Structures are given as C-alpha cells and as structure tokens.
C-alpha cells in the first residue's frame, strides 16, 4: 500500500524550499516606526480556538504560525514545517523547522504540534475551527522534530486545511500557565508578539526580535477600532491611521488617483449570491431559475453598487480556490429580459393585470430573506435585484432582517423563503469545502450549508469521490464536472466575488495583500515617511 501511494502522489519526498526574501531592492527598506491600522470591529478573541473571524485573525495571523501557509498566489508553502511526506491515505508526516522558539522561550517541537491539535480537537468544547478542519483528527509525535498528522478518513484537502490562517501553533507552557487568559494574550512563534489589548480601543503587537525568519520591519502595529466607514476614511486622510481595512467603496476611485495613498487590491475567495430554494415551487422548475438569472444585470450591479470593490462572480467558487472552474455565466445566462420572459412563458407563466406573471391564479411572487451589512452591500444588491425582477414580471417580497434572524431561518431544517442573500468563503481554499457542504444532498441545514436544498445524485457521488481522493489532478477533474452540472441547474444567482481591498498611506511600503481576507501579513511592511 505505502509504496504505491508514494509512487502515485510523491516523486520521492517533496522538499519545500525556504521562502527566500525576494523583495526587489527598488526602495531601501527602513526599519522602525509604528503602523496604525483602523478596522471596523474588535476581535472576539486572539485565540484561534475561540475566534475564526477576520477581526481576530488579522491580529493573531501575525503572531501564530501554522505548519504550512498559503502564499499570495494561493500555493501551499512551508512555515513551521520544512517538508512533508504522505505515509498513508490518512497520515501525513511533517519534518519541523529546527531551532524555533515561542515568544515565551518554549522550544517549538512535535510535542507542541500535538498539544495544539489536542487542545483544539479534544478540548471541551472543541475549537471553533474544528468545523473548518474536516476529517483532521490530530497529531502523533514521531521524534522531537517529526510529527504525523492524522485524519479520520482519507481527506483530499488536508494540506490546504493545515495551511489555513487559524491553524497557528500555540506555546504549551503559556497555555498551561495562563489558562483562559491565553485567549487575550496569545503566545506563538510569529514575527510579532503580543503587547496589549484594550477592549474596543486597540490591540498592540510588536516585533519579535528572536524570530527565526526575516524579522518584522516596523517596531509596532496598532490595530484601532473605528466602526464608522466615514470616520475610518477620515482617519486615513488626517494621518491618524496608516492603513484602512474595509475602505469605503464609493471613495476608491478618488483614492486610486490620489498619489498620497496606495490602494492594495486582489480577488478574494468569497462569493456573494442570491440563493434559490430549489425545492420550493415555483423555483423547483429549472426554467424559472434560469429566467431569474437572465433577468439580473450583474454588470450594472458590479459597476454601480460595488463600484469596483468586487469582481464578477464566475461561478459558485472564487478563482483562487483549488478546483475552481469558470461556469461561463456571461455566455450561458447573459442579461436578457426577453430571454427571461420567454423562459417564464415556456414554464407556463403569463403576464397578469399588474404586470406580475401569473399561472393558475398564482402570482409569481417570491419571498426573499436578506440581512444588511453582513456581506459587503448585501442589502443593496438585494434591493437592486428586486427592482430588476419587477421588469420581467417577478415580484420579490424582500424582508431585510437582522443577521441573527436571517441566520436562524436559513439554518433551520425547513426554509420558508424562496430566496436568501448570502456569501460563502472557501476558508481552506479547496473546492471540497464548498461543493461538498453546499451542494451535497445530505448537507441540508442544520447538518451542512446546502441552503438551496439542492439534490442531485451525480453531484453527491462526485463530491464524495473527490473528498476521499488524494490525487489532486483527479480531484480537480471531478470538481470540474460538478461545476458543469451546477451551471446547467443554477440554484444560485452568483452576484460577485469579493475583492480584498486595503488602502494605506503612500508612505507604507512593502505590503502585499492576500486573496484570503484573514491572511494579513504585516512583517514585510515598512514605513517610509
């Protein structure tokens, strides 16, 4: 068994080279200074066990490192591990980087890896990222610098899972000594270490002088909380902040032209969509669903509502995700009101007295659940599509509720709405994570997140097969077929793919934005006044 696996998946042992510092020497890097970042919310916690959302991740990603990491091109790269070897379908062996110490002086080794995974997966309650980690079951110590990562069943996405932002290693001694205080002052191996967290005011981290790799260039980073979008932008203009996370889309065109600022942007990995309940009449008719796609002018939404702050949705996955295939939406479902009406007519709908389509005395009226502010411009795109639907004789009864209420209803076993505005981020950047949880017929909430209540036996087989396979080429092909099927059946109206956008003063150099919103790397940034 083992040799076959080796020959199939590994041409020998794949050694991952050290990521050398490849920054071109165009500017002379300067050390020192404080980088002040404003963002809308305070972290829940700084411990990945309790916090998987961005406000915490932005901070702890700079203090805690995992075995692997994803670079800006979405390739898996070494971090605390230097090489790996697949031992069996459920076991991967990692060689660990020697001579690494946690911020508190504790040596980093196989025991620390096992400790981190045990704490997260066997703890009561388990870590919040446990749900993101699929079949990951823990780690076994082989020797001081060798560790086996074990999964419960063959799990294709294992490497990308270990490269997730929340898989940072924690210092066993610090956790034992600090108890629950650890979550407010984490101890890792990263280029920055924790200084202070004043709730709802700021979090401060500073350079780790003993870092194993390239040391951070700035002395300190201050993360400030400024909830109001307008106020954040003003803080940047007055110089109170060096960098703004979640800048105001409406101001981006002006900022792009302004030489005092730099707009950093890249395509993200979240797709925001208007979901369709495929099990609920009249949306159980694929022609009605397709008609709705033709009725939506996605380009107008991108240009006028997103205003360049998002990219087109190319399918149910974002382009950076492993297994992504372009679903050719613009070719298959161009904005065409005549086509939309024709499809509705085919499905037996005729215009009623008030312009809304009718069939058998029933109006084509769809109830639609959305929140405002959960995903960028979610309320606005819902309102825009509502108006577009009206043009083809479809009435949308929109209910904009607080996120908690929307979430409760969408996550319930039965959903009593035709449509819902949601977003989905492929956290581990592997198609399994989305295609399995979102479209497998057994993943209807509350088990998974098949909010469309979509059921297709072929899709079920394909995503199961791809999940168990460790052959990445084969997996890519299987996921391609899934996306081809979905492109015909359309249980979503994909609206946009997020863009990660950060605006900084022009004096902030060396910063590279990452497609995954959580992966905010600050150690290479420096301040040139």
């Amino acid at each position, binding site marked *: 068994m083992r040799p076959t696996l080796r020959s199939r998946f590994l041409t020998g042992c794949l050694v991952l080279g050290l990521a050398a510092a490849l920054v071109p020497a165009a500017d002379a890097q300067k050390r020192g200074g404080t980088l002040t970042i404003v963002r809308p919310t305070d972290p829940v916690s700084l411990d990945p066990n309790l916090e998987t959302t961005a406000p915490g991740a932005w901070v702890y990603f700079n203090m805690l490192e995992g075995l692997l990491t994803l670079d800006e091109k979405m390739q898996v790269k070494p971090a605390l591990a230097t090489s790996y070897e697949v031992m069996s379908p459920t076991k991967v062996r990692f060689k660990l980087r020697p001579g690494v110490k946690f911020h508190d002086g504790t040596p980093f080794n196989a025991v620390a890896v096992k400790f981190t995974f045990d704490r997260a997966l066997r703890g009561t309650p388990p870590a919040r990222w446990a749900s993101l980690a699929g079949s990951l079951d823990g780690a076994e110590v082989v020797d001081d610098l060798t560790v086996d990562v074990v999964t419960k069943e063959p799990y294709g996405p294992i490497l990308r899972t270990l490269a997730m932002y929340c898989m940072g290693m924690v210092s066993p001694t610090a956790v034992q000594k600090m108890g629950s205080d650890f979550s407010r002052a984490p101890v890792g191996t990263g280029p920055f270490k924790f200084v202070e967290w004043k709730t709802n005011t700021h979090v401060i981290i500073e350079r780790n002088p003993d870092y194993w790799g390239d040391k951070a260039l700035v002395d300190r980073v201050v993360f400030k909380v400024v909830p109001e979008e307008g106020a954040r932008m003003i803080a940047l203009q007055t110089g109170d902040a060096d960098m703004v996370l979640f800048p105001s889309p409406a101001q981006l065109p002006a900022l792009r032209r302004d030489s005092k600022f730099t707009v950093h942007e890249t395509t993200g990995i979240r797709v925001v969509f208007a979901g369709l309940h495929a099990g609920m009449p009249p949306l159980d008719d694929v022609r009605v669903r397709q008609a709705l796609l033709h009725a939506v002018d996605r380009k107008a939404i991108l240009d*006028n509502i997103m205003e360049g702050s998002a990219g087109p949705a190319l399918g149910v996955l974002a382009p950076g995700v492993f297994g992504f295939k372009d679903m050719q939406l613009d070719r298959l479902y161009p904005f065409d009101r005549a086509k939309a009406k024709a499809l509705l007519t085919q499905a037996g709908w005729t215009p009623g007295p008030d312009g809304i389509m009718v069939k058998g005395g029933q109006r084509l009226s769809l109830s639609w659940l959305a929140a405002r502010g959960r995903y960028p411009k979610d309320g606005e795109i819902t309102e825009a599509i509502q108006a577009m639907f009206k043009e083809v004789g479809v009435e949308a009864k*929109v209910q904009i509720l607080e996120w908690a209420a929307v979430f409760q209803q969408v996550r319930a076993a039965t959903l009593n709405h035709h449509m819902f505005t949601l977003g989905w981020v492929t956290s581990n950047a592997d198609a399994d994570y989305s295609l399995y949880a979102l479209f497998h017929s057994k993943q209807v909430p509350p088990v998974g997140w098949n909010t469309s209540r979509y059921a297709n036996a072929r899709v079920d087989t394909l995503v199961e097969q791809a999940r168990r396979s460790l052959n990445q080429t084969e997996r890519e092909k299987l996921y391609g077929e899934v996306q081809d099927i979905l492109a015909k059946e359309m249980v979503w109206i994909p609206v946009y793919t997020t863009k990660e956008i950060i605006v900084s003063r022009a004096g902030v150099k060396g910063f590279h934005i990452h497609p995954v919103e959580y992966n905010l790397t600050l150690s290479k940034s420096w301040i040139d006044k």
Partner: protein
Amino acid sequence: MTAWMRFYRNRLAVLGLALILVLALSAALAPWLAPYDPARQSLVEKRSKPGAKYWLGADEFGRDILSRVIYGSRVALLVGVLSVLIAVAGGLVLGTISGFAGGWVDAVMMRGIEILLAFPYLLLALAIVAAMGTGALNTTIAVGVWGIPTVTRMVRGAVLALRETEYVGAARALGAATPALLRRHILPNIVPGLVVYATLFMANAILLEAALSFLGLGVQPPTASWGLMVSTGRDVLLVAPHVATVPGVAIMIAVLAFNLVGDGLRDALDPRLRGSA
C-alpha cells in the same frame, strides 16, 4: 378669546400647522405629486446631483430622491402620529392609576416602569419587532411603547402634585368621584405638559424609526422611509452629501412643524398664559 383664536394669532404655530398640512397632503397625494415611481431604479444615474431631471438628485440606486421624500412622508406621519398616540394613551392610563391609587399599587407600578426604563430601548424594540415581524406598523408600536414609561411618570408626577393642591382637596371634600376629578381637574392641568412632551416625542419617534430602519427593523424595501434614507446615505456623506442631507432636512422640517404646533397649542391652552402672548 377662545383657545383657537389665540392659536391662530401665533404666526409660527400657524406656519407649523401649514407645514403639517403640506406633510399630510403629500402623504395623501403622493402618487400624483411624485414625478417618478419611488421604487424605480436607474443604476447608472446613481447619486446624480440635483438638477433638471431629478430636482433633489438621485440616491445610490438612481432613484428619485424627491419622489422618495414625498412617499416617505407617509411612513413619517404614520409612525409619528400613531406612536405618540400609543405612548400618550398608555402613559395616561398607567400614570393616573398609579398617581391616584398610591400605596402598594403605585409602588408595584413604579417598579414595573423602572424595569422598562432600566431596559435598553433598542433591545425592547428588537424584541417587539422580532416577536411580531418587521414592517411599518410594528416599528410604530415599538417606538410607541418606548414612550409609555416617560409619559406615565410625567402624568403620575402631575397627579401627585395636584392631589395635594387646595382645589382638588376641596373637590374631594365635596364628594367628587375620581373620574370626575380626573376629567375636571387633573386632565386640564396635565394637557399642556403632555402636549409639549407629545411634540417632542414625535421628533424622537421619527428619529428612533431612523435607527430601527437602519437595523433592518423598520419598513421593508422598496418602501421609502426618511430614516432609512438618511441611514444608508450616510455612507456616501463625503462623496454625495445630498443623499443623506435631503431626507435629513425632511425629518428636520417635519419635526420642526410638530414642535411649532405643539408650542402654539401650549400657549393657547394654558389658561394662566391668557393674554400674555
């Protein structure tokens, strides 16, 4: 001179009344007055500056702001008037009972009121709307309930103070029944205060509706609400100030109108001010 005559002699109050009439007319005649369908979108014309086509400009969906302001007067009037009625009616009943009954009834009721007052109103509004569903009417109820404790305490305070005055004491001694006392002596004395409060509350009602609409607990799209218009327009305050300013001014004018009328009514109704204005 009658109260109405005195009211009509107050020019500011008449101006306020005229503004309220305009408001009421625009609410009643909205479909004929509005140049466009308030829900009609034209995304490419988003945030158009005020001009020949859109007199007050267009919002972030390219909807005509003037038409939305006109239709928004319906929501403002509905929420403002109804919520005040709820607050005043509730407060009047509870406050009189509490003030008159005294003793343990009063103590229990006051503790209940304190619970309500000690409760962050946002949570209360959330609870009411969450329990009953979203929409303009439920928002109104949530806003109205918020005013009940304050009115109750005002009324109770007035009743307590008046109970001790000579004329109520005398009326009591003469064997007047409580309802008669209430109608003849207490009510006329608290009406001016209530009118002042009701007009002030009207302002707050409209502003609270803005906050609730913003939280997604107000009217549902595509219905136009001034509060929602200001709330969503504030994101573009720096690039397109008119989107938030116009409905903000509409709120201000509506509130101003109610205040002017309230003040005028107060001066006109308060017998002690007779002839002084």
